[in-house]
């Protein structure tokens, strides 16, 4: 088991290194300069900037310097926010993205799972069709459409909920700012989870041991929730790992629509302004997150299923 873990961990680190090298090269290859603007700077000033940021050095020297920084979780100075470090932006941004992401993931489970179980219990009846139509719609409507639609309906027309910004404190009024972004973020996953849950339940409910349970004279509710559910939701559980990663990294659009000061905004602005350090910081944080989550899923599988450890 330990060997398996070490192998997985090493593979994760190697992947991260490859990502770092490739992204670093791409940021240097991208056309346009971080110092160009509609008011062009004097070449001397651009030179001074390049010296300041070490951009005048050969690329391998730059990479080596950057890499040493990454090992200390230091992403260097930002070219976009002068006189400030990338860390000062990434840290608070990441903290917010994570909170919103986890909220979205929790909401997706809370709604998606009961919806799926409920639909399977009413297989091929009107309620099932209704639930699954909603789910299909959730998969089809992208979040950059769903977000503005929710804003239009609940924010501007009904005036029930705030249309954006991050809560200033922990009061309910402030926290309600997170409701619409949370729903927007969770919608597509609600859809997947409910469909997976429904399929899983239907599969399990035809198994022999369920028939046995029913034959024992247990109530339908007990059969469903006690015997069926445990095995029926396995597909949902295996979807959870990638989903959490998707939710945590997939909030870029949602952050834009709802003006949430998360990591995604820094990623976009960094790319648009050719802020290489900002881009690298975001790429490395995002990819570490995905790799770490995958590692955890692998570990969990390794415990659950011995066959995985060997392969």
């Amino acid at each position, binding site marked *: 088991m330990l060997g398996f873990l070490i192998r997985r961990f090493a593979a994760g680190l190697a992947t991260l290194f490859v990502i770092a090298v490739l992204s670093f090269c791409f940021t240097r290859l991208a056309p346009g300069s971080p110092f*160009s*603007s509609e008011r062009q700077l004097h070449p001397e*000033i651009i030179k001074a900037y390049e010296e300041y940021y070490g951009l005048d050095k050969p690329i391998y020297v730059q990479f080596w310097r950057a890499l040493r920084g990454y090992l200390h979780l230091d992403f260097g100075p930002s070219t976009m926010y*002068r006189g*400030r470090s990338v860390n000062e*932006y990434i840290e608070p941004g990441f903290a917010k993205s994570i909170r919103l992401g986890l909220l979205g993931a929790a909401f997706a489970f809370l709604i998606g799972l009961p919806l799926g179980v409920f639909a399977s219990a009413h297989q091929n009846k009107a309620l099932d069709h209704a639930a699954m139509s909603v789910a299909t719609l959730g998969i089809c409507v992208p979040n950059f459409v769903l977000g503005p639609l929710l804003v239009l309906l609940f924010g501007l027309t009904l005036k029930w909920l705030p249309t954006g910004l991050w809560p200033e404190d922990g009061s309910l009024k402030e926290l309600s700012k997170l409701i619409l972004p949370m729903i927007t973020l969770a919608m597509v996953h609600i859809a997947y989870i409910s469909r997976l849950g429904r399929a899983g339940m239907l599969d399990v409910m035809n198994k022999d041991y369920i028939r046995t349970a029913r034959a024992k004279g247990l109530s339908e509710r007990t059969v469903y929730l006690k015997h069926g559910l445990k095995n029926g939701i396995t597909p949902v559980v295996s979807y959870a790992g990638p989903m959490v990663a998707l939710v945590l990294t997939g909030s870029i659009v949602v952050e834009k629509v709802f*003006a949430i*000061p998360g990591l995604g905004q820094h990623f976009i*602005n960094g790319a648009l302004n050719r802020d290489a350090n900002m881009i690298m910081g975001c790429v490395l944080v995002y990819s570490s997150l995905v790799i770490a989550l995958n590692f955890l899923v692998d570990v969990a599988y390794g415990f659950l299923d011995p066959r995985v450890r060997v392969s």
Partner: protein
Amino acid sequence: MRAVWSFLFLAPLLASCGSKTEPTSAAKPVKAVLSTFLKQEPIPDRIAYARQLLAEAGYPGGKGLPKLEVLYNTDEGHKKIAAAIQQMWNKNLGVDVELRNSEWKVYLDDLSKLRYQVGRRGWIGDYRDPYTFIELMKSDSGNNNTGWSDPDFDRLALESGAEADPARRYEILRQAEAILLCDLPVLPLYYYVSQAAWTDKVKGVYQNIMDYHPLNEAYVEGSDTIVINNGTEIQALDPALARGVPEHRVLNAVYEGLTRSDPRTYDPLPGVAETWDISKDGKTYTFHLRECAWSDGKKVTAHDFVFAWRRILNPAFPSDYAHMLHVVKGAEPYNSKKTSDPLTVAVEAKDDRTFVVELEHPVPYFPELVTHYAFHPLRKDVLEKHGDAWTRTENIVTNGPFKVKEWRPNEHVLLEKNDGYWGSAKTKTRYVKFLPIDNRLTAWNLYLTGKCDWVTTLPVEKMEEIIKRPDYHGATYLGIYYWSFNCTNGPLKDRRVRKALTLALDRDIIVKRIALQGQVPAYGFVPPMFDAYKSPRFDVKD
């Protein structure tokens, strides 16, 4: 002098105006331009004349003219204008046009390296003087981006600096503009309007042609906070590192220069300087500082200005706006490493409350220029104590009507009234909160739901609806929206082709049906916003 004559009368024989080398004297060409170009009435049928010019250039009905490529940065608004240009050139001149859009940084790269034929441009004046537009097209200007240069134009631009008489100075600038409009490396379309929306509860805010609103007296009725969407996260709180309008809003609220702007007229009012004397030759300014304090209680002195001005000019310290100080004697040589001695910059603290500046040449707009944050004072001891971290909320010391209370990256910048500010009796709001929302629709939604009192950028897709609202505030703005020609190769080297293309656009349609915000059609380059300055027009016969 033959040069200017030649492109007035012999222009059809010349491929380009950029090839003149003969040394010229001042008086005569100027007269020539005035008598033939400046005094003519506009052509009644611009399009017919455009066709004629194109035919003279050897492309009758557009025949033989290779397909033109029009470059713009990706944006719905620019796209619509580009499409209109494409259609009008095709319909009026028979010219084939292809549109190309690029992402912002790629577009900037293409413009500066002249990898384009016709490109989208715009320019906002730095100060209220025609020179801010003339300077742009000098051959050594980094923002010219057309490959066009004209020795007479450069010479006039230079001469205008030495001229102490305001009327004569305007006349020289007008002649320079006439040369530009005769040669047309640029295609003027319209003069900008500024746009913003604020609720009827916002008081003490006025429109002016710089679209700049000092917050000294601004407040929201029934609230201690005014919430402004600033359009983007500010890049720096260090006046020497900042650039752009959003930074301007914040910096001018937390710092105060020698002068400050009148919220209604934008005219310079006494700031830290209570009064100032100007020497007879217009080159030496003596500012008499008032008794006023920094946010930590220490006195603001003339030394703080000397320190800040020399710092921004330090060539080792890359600053976007250092060039604004080049009017100060000795500033340019020091800033561009011709000398390494900061003491050669002619700024001096005669005593704690007397600040003397010597200028290279008379600058009539100098009192207005020093409202800009590039000229703000800084505290040497604070910068030395905290190093790079001096702009952190806990370290920063400022001298304006507000102080920095909190800066949460991408969330907000919160300012609080500075009770120690000399004019604080007039400051009516306790807090100013700047939001950094760049998605205009999101910002607009927050405005509609009362989360924001004032939005400085508006969503293009809602403009038609917004301009009808009573809380929409549009005003003429010191800026021009133009497109530029790459004058270095192909048929666009020929000024007749450029003139034909410039004439063949119906600016009224573009303004009324496409741009939609009450912009003013442009037939000149310097916006018609200076009383004594009458812009020449390009739509006259050669």
